[in-house]
């Protein structure tokens, strides 16, 4: 019989990849019939419209400048680095 130590690495190994979740052929067809944008259309819109950075005013950029705490996001109990 195997002891606990011999089975522990199995549980410690990374979980298998999650199954893919891309739209199915049928969903893509229905999306096209409904006139929803394709990747090419979405890409064209993305490149032609102002993005998040372009939407910022000089005052907003000035407010961000010098704020180290704005450069960090995450829960208080998030995984910390161990040295």
């Amino acid at each position, binding site marked *: 019989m195997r002891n606990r130590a011999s089975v522990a690495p199995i549980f410690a190994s*990374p*979980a*298998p*990849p*999650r*199954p*893919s*979740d*891309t*739209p199915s052929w049928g*969903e*893509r067809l*229905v*999306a096209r019939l*409904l006139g*929803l*944008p394709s*990747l090419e259309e*979405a*890409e064209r*819109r*993305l*490149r032609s*419209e*102002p*993005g*998040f*950075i*372009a*939407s*910022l005013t000089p005052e*907003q*950029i000035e*407010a*961000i*400048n*010098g*704020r*180290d*705490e*704005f*450069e*960090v*996001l*995450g*829960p*208080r109990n*998030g*995984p*910390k*680095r*161990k040295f």
Partner: protein
Amino acid sequence: MPNLHFWRAKQDYARRRRIAYDTVRGEAAQTGFISVPLRIEETNEHTVAAWQATWRGPHPSGAGSWDWDRLLRRAWRRPSAFHVAIWSGEVLCGLGVGRVSKRRAFGLRHTISVHFVESAHDRGHPLRYTIATLVIAAAVAYGKLLGATRIRLIEPLPGVIPLYERLGFTVAWKAGQPVYCERRIKP
């Protein structure tokens, strides 16, 4: 037998991330927001190695110091995950990771959420004070390509809530603590 469907999904989402990140890099240069060399890329083993080798000591804010090895490896298991590395030349200046909501009808995702962001710990890195903006911009662009209509920043630090509000985010509170900040994405 290799999981072909999983591999195809990884390729598809990687392509979308590349398009999104290239667009943000161009926008950052065109608007003058960034005037030093800038690369915005997906994360990979090289990113983890650079993080381990160069991010030492506490973050200037006193927060963060996330275990990016663990966070990124978890993100890589999900093809649609949002993960980004921001470089200036060979200097790793910032990291971000998040996810998109479950796929709705016709493949659309309604929300992209950013869970972790951190800039390099070196106070002299070339992109200081621009990392969060670049990560948010990358997430917005990637979300747009997936049909998302809102971005959420999960568990922001309470001290910078007024700043997020100033950038157009609304804050959701629970028991006196900020749960997330949210902003609409124009489809």
